[in-house]
Structures are given as C-alpha cells and as structure tokens.
C-alpha cells in the first residue's frame, strides 16, 4: 500500500497553500516598506512620482525607460480647501516648513533641530545659503549632517524632505561679523538683502500642502523640544517667542542670559511721529540710541517665573524664531525689501500682514536662545 500513499500525499490543496505562501514571501521581500513603521508609510504615500513636484514632498527616483522616452508628468490635483492650520497640528497631521537663511552652520543648531519632538515625517527643512566662500563652507557642513541624518540616522530623526538653495545675489557685506552687521548705516542694505533671501526661500518652497511656516535663524541653538506644538497651540496667525542669548560675564565668569532680539515691539506715538517726518525711503530702526522710538520691546517684557503662555499683541516682529500660518504668506504677506511704512524685513512683514487683516502675537516668557559670538 506504501507506494500509492506516497504519490497521493501531495494533494492539490498543499500545492495551492505553497503557492499562496510563495506569493506572500515575494510581496514581503519586494516591498519591505509596507511592513515598516507608520511614519515611513506616510513618507512613501506623500512621495511624488516626478522630480518636478512640490519640494516639500520626497520624490521617487525616475527609472529611465529603455527606449529613452520621457514619460510626461501626471496631472496632479491639490485640494487646498483641506489644508488646515489648527491648534492641534500633530493630531491633524499638519505639515510644517522650517525656513532658515543660513550664513554659518552651527552644529548646535542641527542638534537642536533633531531634538524637536514634532513628528519628523511632517517637517520639511529649507535653507538659503549665499554663494560665497563662507556659504560654500556652510553648505558642505550642512550636507554632511543631512547625509548622516537622512541616510544612516534612525528612522524617527529623518525629515520628510530637505531643500538647499543657493542665493542668486551677493550679500551686500563681505563680512558677517556681529559688530559689522549691526552698524546702523549698514542695516538698510543688509536687511533688504535679507528680505530678498527670505522671500526667495519662502515662495519657492511653500508648495500647495504646507500648513505652517517656522522661521528659524541658523544661530538659534536652543529651543524647547516641543517648540512647534507649543507655539501652534496658541492658534495665532503670527506668533513669536522671546529670543535670548546666554553669555559668560567677563567679571564674575558666571553664565548669564540677556535679551537679544529687539525687533518684536508694540508701536509708540513717538515712533509714529518720527515716521511721519521721514522721507519715503527712510526706515525706523530699533535698538539705536540715535533713534529713540520709545516702543515697548518684548525683549524687556520677560518676567522670571511667570506663565510661559502669556500673550501680548505686537506691531513689529523679529525673525529669529517666528511661526506663521501658511495662509498668511499665501495671501501675500512677505518681507518687504523696501521701506514699507518706514519698516523693512520682519518688521515690515508684520505691518503688511496687518494690512491684510492678520495680527501678530508675542510670547514674552517663552524663550529661545541665540548663539553667542
């Protein structure tokens, strides 16, 4: 009876099961990402099929067809009615674009970025780097860190997409040293160039799906890890934390901190009068003894131990750290590179936003830290 049994043992059912198993093995082998984390799933779902896609999403490398024929890009619909910016950005899976005009690369800045707890697959980074020797050095340093994070770093550190742009105009000053760039006569040209850099960066990277824009200067080296969630929770059109700087006192050798950004302020009658007496191309500047504006500066509103969620209305904002709803920029609020109501750059931006019916808010007790040179 033996030989007959051995022939009958492999009945059709076992073969079918085997084939099905084979299929499963193939599927899992060839698309391993489907078995990976939800984050990477979201990543590949957002990926565009063409490099001519909004830079805020990753794209699939194109396999050149054998016959060398180019496949025309697809017709893509973007439903911008569904792009929201709410107080719960993580819950609503809102994408954020972090924009940084980069003159020098600080390792602390990058480390601080990696520490942010906002889901990294919802974060796109974009940098604008001038085309000079310093810029080249910064680019190299930045690219090294990017490769480290995006290729070999842990999955949860990887950002959705990173854009590096090189500026198409020379910065007006060859030196970016702190003393030089804060001279009053240099301010207008410097800040006009800065505005152009910011605008170029903003309008080429914003894309159709961004919900929030976070402006973060390359010398901001310390922020709370929940910076984005904390600022967004206030659900304001424009919101600014208070920018401080840690320094070592030359006498006592203690580490102390001092206010750094004086561009966030509430307007004063004195400043308004000063502006009225000016020519159309003159600008009002803050923090210079020659020009007493008597504005209320947010830098000095800080109170030790007070509620960090205290809000104050602002008329001018600084750009060191600044969270803006994308729709404010989309409506046209940009950084004027020319005197706009005698204001320029970020201060002019606050003014333009106001003309478009958007208000700016400050958080005097919520601190971020600037690099000390």
């Amino acid at each position: 009876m033996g030989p007959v049994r051995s022939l009958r043992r492999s009945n059709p059912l076992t073969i079918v099961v085997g084939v099905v198993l084979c299929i499963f093995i193939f599927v899992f082998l060839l698309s391993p990402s489907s078995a990976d984390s939800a984050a990477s799933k979201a990543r590949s779902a957002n990926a565009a099929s063409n490099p001519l896609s909004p830079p805020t999403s990753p794209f699939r490398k194109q396999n050149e067809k054998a016959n060398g024929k180019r496949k025309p890009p697809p017709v893509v619909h973007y439903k911008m009615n569904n792009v929201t910016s709410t107080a719960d950005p993580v819950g609503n899976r809102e994408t954020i674009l972090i924009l940084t005009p980069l003159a020098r690369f600080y390792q602390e800045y990058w480390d601080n970025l990696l520490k942010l707890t906002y889901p990294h697959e919802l974060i796109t980074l974009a940098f604008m780097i001038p085309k000079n020797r310093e810029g080249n050095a910064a680019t190299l340093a930045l690219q090294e860190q990017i490769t480290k994070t995006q290729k070999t770093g842990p999955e949860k550190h990887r950002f959705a997409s990173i854009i590096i742009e090189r500026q198409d105009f020379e910065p007006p000053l060859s030196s970016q040293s702190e003393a030089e760039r804060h001279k009053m006569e240099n301010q207008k040209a410097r800040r006009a160039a800065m505005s152009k850099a910011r605008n170029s960066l903003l309008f080429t990277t914003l894309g159709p799906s961004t919900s929030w824009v976070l402006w973060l200067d390359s010398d901001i080296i310390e922020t709370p890890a929940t910076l984005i969630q904390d600022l967004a929770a206030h659900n304001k059109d424009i919101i600014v934390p208070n920018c401080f700087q840690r320094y070592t006192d030359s006498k006592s050798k203690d580490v102390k901190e001092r206010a750094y950004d004086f561009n966030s302020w509430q307007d004063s009658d004195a400043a308004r009068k000063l502006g009225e007496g000016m020519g159309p191309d003159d600008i009002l500047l803050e923090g210079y003894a020659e020009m007493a504006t008597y504005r209320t500066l947010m830098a000095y509103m800080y109170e030790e131990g007070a509620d960090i969620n205290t809000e104050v209305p602002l008329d001018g904002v600084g750009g060191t750290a600044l969270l803006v709803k994308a729709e404010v920029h989309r409506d046209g609020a940009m950084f004027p590179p020319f005197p706009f109501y005698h204001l320029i750059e970020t201060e002019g931006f606050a003014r333009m936003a106001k003309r478009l019916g958007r208000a700016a808010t400050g958080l005097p007790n919520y601190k971020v830290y600037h690099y000390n040179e």
Partner: protein
Amino acid sequence: MLPRHTAKSDSYSNGYPRAKEKNTYSISPHRFQPRASPPALRRRRQLLIRLGLLVGIGLFAFFVWPGASVVPLLSLGFLSSGEDFQLETVRYYDLSTVQGTARGWEREERILLCAPLRDAESHLRMFFAHLHNFTYPHHLIDLAFLVSDSKDRTLGLLSELLEDLQADEDPKMPYGEISIIEKDFGQKVNQDVESRHGFAAQASRRKLMAQARNWLLSAALRPYHSWVYWRDVDVETAPFTILEDLMRHNKDVIVPNVWRPLPDWLGGEQPYDLNSWQESETALALADTLDEDAVIVEGYAEYATWRPHLAYLRDPYGDPDMEMDIDGVGGVSILAKAKVFRSGVHFPAFSFEKHAETEGFGKMAKRMQFSVVGLPHYTIWHLYEPSVDDIRHMEEMEEERKAREKEEQDKADRMKKIKDQFADPNSQWEKDKTDIQNEALREKKEKEKAEAQNVVETQVPADSKPETKAEAKADSKVESKADAVKAQ
C-alpha cells in the same frame, strides 16, 4: 470477462494482493498494475505545479523587472527599508542658474504658466487650442491652474483636457508639471461682464482676485523656474510665438497690448485692457487725497487720472518691438522673470500705493527697481463678450432686421397678388420668343450638317488610308445618327 485468477480468494477483486500474503513485492505480469492507474490525478498535479511556477515568474517580473531594484530581493529585505532607496528627500538648487535670459528656449529655461479660473468652462477649449499651438518647447512649460468658487463644470473639463494633452501621441505636445489647485475663497461677486466691471465692485473684486493669484503663485512656483507667465483663458487670438516674442526683450516684467474685436456696428475693435499705464502727476496728486484703503481703478469716470494708457497708443502698422515704460500692468498676459516673484513682488490684496492686484503688482515691481515694460504695437485679442447694453442694442437691431424682412416679404406678396390678378403679357411674349429661337436654331443645325456631309464625301476618294477610312466610317455613323434625329 474477468481473468481467472481474480476468482482466487487471496486477492481483492481488483487483483491487488491481500495484506496477509507474504509476497507483497512480487510482481506478477498477470496482475493488474495499480501504478499506472491515476494518470488523471498526476496530470492535474503537474498542471498545478506549472501554474504555480507561472504565477511565481509572473510575480517576479511584475515586481522586479520594470521598476523596482533587485537589491531587496538579493539582500532578502534585510538591507534597510527598500522603499527608502527609491525615495529622494534632498534637493539642491542654485538660483543663479535660473535668472532668465533673452533666449531662454536655447538654455532650457523653465516657464511657469499660471491661469486663475472661475466659471470658465466655456473658454477652456479655446484656451487649450492656444496651448496646443505654443511654439516654446512644451516640456519646459509647467502649467498651474487655480479653480475657485466654480459652479459650472470647469474642474471636470479641465482635468479631462489636461489628461488628453499629457497622453497626446505627439511627443512634443505634453507639458511639464501640471498642478490643478482647488481652493474656494467664498466669493460672492458675480463673474458676468456687467457686475465684473461695475465701479463699486471693483476694489473688493480686485483684492479677491489678487488673493487668488497669490495663492496660485505661492503654491506653484518652484526653485527651477526662470520665468512666470500669467495668462487669462479668455484670450481669443494671440501669436503662437508670444512667449519667445516677449522673452526676447529680456525685461523683468513685460505685457503686450490687449484689444478686443467688436461687431461692425460698434466700430470693429476696441482697446480692452486699461490697466497698463504710465503714472501721471494728476494721478499721484489724486492718490495723496485718498484714504489708506482706497484703490484707484482705471477706465472709470470717477477717477480721472489722465494717464497715458498702453492700449490707446496702439498703431496697427507700428513696430511690434517698440517698448514703453509703464507703472501699472494688466493681467491678461504678463511675462515676468521668476526672480521678480522670488524677491517678494506679488499681487497686493490690500491697497498698495492706492492700487491692488496687477496694477499694484506693477507698482511694487517698480518699487523694487525692476523694469516694467509694455509693447504698444504688439497686440493680442481678448474675447468679445457683449455687455447688457450691447445685448439690448443687438436685440433692437435684430428686431429692426426682422421688421425690414417682414416688410420686404409683404411687398413681394403684394406684387405677386397683382401679377396673379392681371394676366401677365410677359409670359406669352417669352413663349413666342423661345419658339422663334428654337426654330432658327434647328434650321441652322440642319444647314451645318448638310455641309459636313458634303465635305466628307469629297474627302473619302482623295484619301485611301485605313485610318481615314475608319474616320470616315465614324463620320458616317455620326451622320446616320444625325439623320435619324432629323427623321424624328
């Protein structure tokens, strides 16, 4: 009939030996051989195995061959996550390579074509005819459409037409990146000609238009664009080479002259876009008197600005390359370098120096020291949509025409009646005349035929060649036919 040995009690009826028998493995040639028994079963198994193999190969081909890399297969999926090998997350752009030059098509400079749409279904086919005809390399043009607050089938038709365009057989036809952006601004303003051009609605309408344009631009502008071209869908006639023609001037912002054709009774043609103008002292003085949020709009008696308009300076025979510096621009067809928009110039949705939208755009570009130029003798033609007045006038004309037709009909009827009542001598005259003519004709014919016969008869004896004989035969045939006719 069963073989004899099956009757033996030590085996089954099928010839299989019973278990108790000792010679289990003995092979007897007389026995029934069960091994050869289930060929059907084996065949089925083989079929299944082959099917399984086929499915396996098919799967392999499907996943590996066309697109995916073999790496995850060979590494058994252990080498990091396979999908991430395919995903590119870092982009690098050098903006100094996308400044925009006079001969962009030679340097493969990309253009972003922006078209804001609202209830534009009826114009779409015309617009796509223009798209088909552009001579600038299509794959260098990216199309971006903003569809907002549309109640008709603009969106559906647009996607259909775009899909067709991208699937075109001709490899030169498909365009670059194509984005359709859907965003509603909750606009209450009507888009018909009358409400669109009424003075009171202008300021808020222009601000909303500006907002739409800014949303479109900020969503579609990329770091690789050198130029941005704004085009309204209701342009009826424009040169196919318009992109190259405007680009050749190498200006930061440049607009052609926009006119529209009119029915003959309205004068044949008319300047259409009055938003392209040069600033005047009067207008600047006027601007100073207005409050912060006021918007000066051109072409209305309420604001007499005395500005030189691009539209009115047109000479049909003038040099199409002539340039004119302007301060405000119209939005029907604007070609601008992308760096203008990158540096922050946009369409103010607020009153910027007392102007909004495209006029404010021109003002802001000027404020940032960009060159803003119009071409007074290079004209494109906007579609003519009759206004309510025009429609009324046309109705009047139609009625007039109908009345005239009716009158003529009446007249004709009257004449006919008269003719019927009084016997018309004309017909009799005509009849007689034709009879006489016929008679004369017949006589003439007979005469001619008789002559022809004579000629043939004289020729035949003189010439004896076979061909001529045949000819003569043919001739005589004709004659006999003619005779037959005569006989009738």
